[in-house]
Every structure is written in C-alpha cells, then in structure tokens.
C-alpha cells in the first residue's frame, strides 16, 4: 500500500490547542473520562474551551495542536467525541508517541507539521496532502511540509484503522 492512496483532508481549523505537552483528556475533562456513550462525551467535550464548539463545526473540520500533543496518559474518549462531532483529523507541531499510535490505530488521521501554529489561524481553510506531504493553508495561500507517515501508519489509515488493516493484510498475505 503506497501512502499516495491516502486521500487528502480538507476542512477548516476548528480549534488551535497551542499549549505544548497538551493532555488530550482535558478536552472532555478528567471527571468525564470514563463515560462510554459517545453522544454524552460529545456533550461535555470542549466545554472548558468553547462551549459553542459543536454548533460551529462542519464535518471535515480539523484540529491543530502544539508541540508534543497528547503527552501524559492519553485516553481514547476525547478523540472518540471529536470524531463523533465530525472532526476529520489533527495536525500538530509534533506528537507524543503513545497518543499517536493510539489514534492511528483508530484510523484517525494525524499529521506532524513543524511550524503549524504560526501558519494557521482558527477557521482558516486547510488541506492535509498525504501524497505530497504538505499542509496547505488555502485561506492564506501558503504551504508547509508535513512529516511522511511510516508505511505501517499509512497503511493503517488507508484501511480505516487497526482491525480493517490487519484483516486486509492477512487476507492478501501482504507481509511487505
């Protein structure tokens, strides 16, 4: 599976988490981290940041993060809530590996893009191009390189997550 088969993400910047070492559990609040129901998670998400967040969203919107996004002890519910609300992916200056691995395995697109905080503002229209490894700010008419995905990560995203990726790989006997 070539990474060129990954479709680009195109959407608006829904929010900018500029804090370095951001603990994603804060998105829903630690007291809500054990909630299983995704609709309930979506209701509590972002209340500390922008109570009207959900109402402003359009499907395909993208989150922006700072350096070492996902540091700490990341759980899955915050990004489950984000996907449920229509968020299509996350672009950050850099990622904490535990968070990265967890979300890639959920089939949730992520892109490391050094310099992204200075290159976008909230509600800019952006495009993440995995074929050319570029982040395009369509509002500003600028672009920045993103870091290339590993072959395994690209294949997992293309398949839609860990389970479909493994099923397809095992079915085709693909051992790369």
């Amino acid at each position, binding site marked *: 599976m070539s990474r060129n088969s990954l479709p680009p993400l195109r959407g608006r910047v829904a929010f900018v988490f500029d804090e370095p070492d951001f*603990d994603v*559990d804060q998105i829903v609040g*630690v007291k809500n981290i054990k909630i299983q129901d995704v609709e309930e998670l979506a209701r509590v998400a972002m209340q500390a940041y922008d109570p009207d967040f959900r109402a402003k969203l359009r499907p395909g919107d993208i989150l922006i993060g700072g350096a*070492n996004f996902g*540091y700490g*002890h990341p759980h899955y519910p915050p990004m489950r809530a984000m996907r449920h609300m229509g968020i299509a992916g996350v672009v950050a200056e850099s990622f904490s590996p*535990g968070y990265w691995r967890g979300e890639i395995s959920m089939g949730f697109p992520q892109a490391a893009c050094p310099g992204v905080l200075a290159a976008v503002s909230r509600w800019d229209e952006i495009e993440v191009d995995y074929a050319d490894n570029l982040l395009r700010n369509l509002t500003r008419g600028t672009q920045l390189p993103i870091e290339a995905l590993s072959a395994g990560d690209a294949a997992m995203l293309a398949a839609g997550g*860990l389970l479909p990726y493994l099923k397809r790989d095992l079915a085709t006997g693909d*051992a790369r």
Partner: protein
Amino acid sequence: MGHTITEKILARASGRDSVRAGDDVMARPDFVVAYDFPGYTDVIFRQMKEEFGIDRVPDPDRFGLFIDHMVPAATPAEEELHIGTRRWCAENGVRLFERRGIGHQVAAEVGYAVPGAFLVHFDGHISQLGTFGTLAMGIRRNLLEAFVRDKVAIRVPGTVRLDVTGRLRSGVMERDLFHHIVRALGPASCKFQVLEIGGPALEGLEVEGIQTITGLAMFTGAVTAIVNPAPRTLDYALPRALKRIEPVRSDEDAAYTARHTLDLDDLEPVVVVPPSPANTRPLRDYLGTEIHAGYLGSCASGRLTDLRAAAKVLKGRQVKPGFALHVVPTSQAIMAAAAAEGLIETLVEAGAFVSSPSCDYCYGRIATMTAGQRAVSTGTLNVKGRMGSPDSEIFLCNAAAVAAAAVEGRIADPRDYL
C-alpha cells in the same frame, strides 16, 4: 558506520542482515506480553476468534499474561475479566503470572528480559526491560497485530544517546535522575526515538534504579529505553532467560539522532508537580507544602532500594497521625526479600500501611483521594485524577522523600533524615 543495539535487535527480528533507523520492517517479537485490562486483553481475545477466526496462538511459549491490575478484585465484573484471562491462558497453553507482583517487574524476574530480545506489550512502562538490553515496546492496541500474525509492522526508531557521568549524592536517587533527564532534555526530546543510556556513571547506579529510569522513558517522548548489557545485568538475566539469544551492543561508531551528557554530581532531590510529568522542580522550592497521603510503590519504584531508603527515614520515627502512607512492594519476591531484611517490620512499626503487590494504588482504584487532598508518590504519573478526584493533586518524588513527607505531613527534605 556502526549500528545501535536497537538496529541490531530489529535486524535479527526482521530476518535482515542489517537495518537502519527509518527503515520500515516487519519484525517478529520474541515475546508478546500483557496484563489483563478491560478494552485491551478481553478485546484482543474476542477479536482473535471472532474477527480473525484464530482459536489458538500458534506458538504459546512466545506469550505471557499477567494479572496485576484489579488485584484483589473488588467487583464481580473485575473477577469475570480475570476468569476470562485464566481460561484463555489455559486454552492456549500460555504462561500466566497471577498475584506475583506488578507484571513489568515480574517479567524481568521470570525471564522475559532476555538481552537482545524484541518484546511487545500494550503498556509503555514495559520499557524497563531495556535495563537488561531487551528492546521492549508498548504499542497500545496495535498489540492485536502480534496476536493474529507472526510479525508486527514497525519503523526502526532512531536513538538518542545519554551518557551519565559523576555520582549521585546521598539522598538523591535514580528516580530523581529520571526527572532531571526530562527537565534537562525536555519532555519531547526523544520523541519516537529510543533513549539509550550509558556512560561511566551507569555502573554506580542500582540496577533497580535503572529499571526505574527506563520504565519511565515515555515521558521523554521515547518509544522505549535501553542499556547495553553489562556483566551484572547479564548475570541477572541470562540464568533465567526464557529464550537463548546472543546479546548485542551498540557499536562505538553507531549513528545517534542526538547525544547528551548529564553529570550526576550536581543533582539534588526533585518533585514533579501536578498536573504533568513534564513539571520537574527542585524539591527545596516546595518544602512545607501540606500533604495528606503517600504512596511508595508502582512498576517504577517500590523495589528493595526504595524500601531501604524509606525504612532508613522511618526507622525509630512515626508517620504523622492522620497521614495515610501506603507502601506496596513491586513484587512478591521483593516483598519477601524486604521482610527478610527487616524492612517491612521497620515500616509497619513506623505506621505505614503495607500491602501486597498490586497496580491498583497507582491509578486511584484503591487508596482513592478526594477533592482537595494531596499525595506524594513514587507512582508513574501525576496527571489530574490519576489517584482519585480530578481535584486532588500528586507530587512525584523519590521513596525517601515520600517517607520524609509522611513523618512531617508536608514536603520535607529526605537528606535531613539520612
């Protein structure tokens, strides 16, 4: 240009003559280990069967399961999980280690820390097997891959090399050293890299202390940590090794992403203030902070060295009335050794509540704090809500500092007691 120990281990595991950092390979883990936890092992067992039609793992000797969380069980659902794990292990002929202690430590005791081996778990603290030259990585839910096929997809990580020089002063422990590394190098300094630790000061550190450091490597952004095998770690690891593998070491001219040197002479005790493991601060800046509870234990700390340090502080003294000091040796073997040394007696006489090994204190399942309470802890983490209410706080520090805080009911300098 030579190779790192990590490149050598992954070359062997992927059946290649050599690999370089950045290469995408399919590598066969020598061992696949996990503790049972809802959403991880129960899901893996179910998906193996229902999604992939695999009833049994083909080579059960590669696998190992641990029951160390929810021990003892407090609800029927927890016991159901354990029953499912026992049944799966029995059906698959897979080794199960139950109530032996915290799995990351027990894994070393029972022989999974094979120098030169490649091992995967879902939990990143398994990196502590790197103390013995094992490449041990926590890959979260991707662990499923290792249960349904022989090899896992992995990009060979680069390596950040840290050389330590000098000597830790009295009252400064390897636990402090780890948090100094986070401060000096940064919480993302090793992102997606292996943290390789070496240098002349290494042999002056306790092996147990190196387990502390390597076990916490994720907080530098590292995917794991590793140390080149040395005579004393080989003496420990080889006689109990579950597999015969030729130990390997980094070449002198190996290529590193970055090289750092840290001198231990100048280090002092630290405290990691809430709510992030990135917040290393000098302990002296927080002296007098009121504290209500103390936890000495976890896969990171809770070994003999830690228990000795606490016992030295508490010998002939008393825990402050109302202060809850929980001491949880990391494994049954460590608990027995501590008892034989008289450490348990000292701790109990001082008023510590000493429990058998369990992971449950570290994440607030028991000894749960309520809003407004503060703990000193040798646990792994100080994020909000880790040990109970999101409005409680955790200050990470070394074992002697936990004991000193227990005596005074506030953050205190352990060096005053040594």
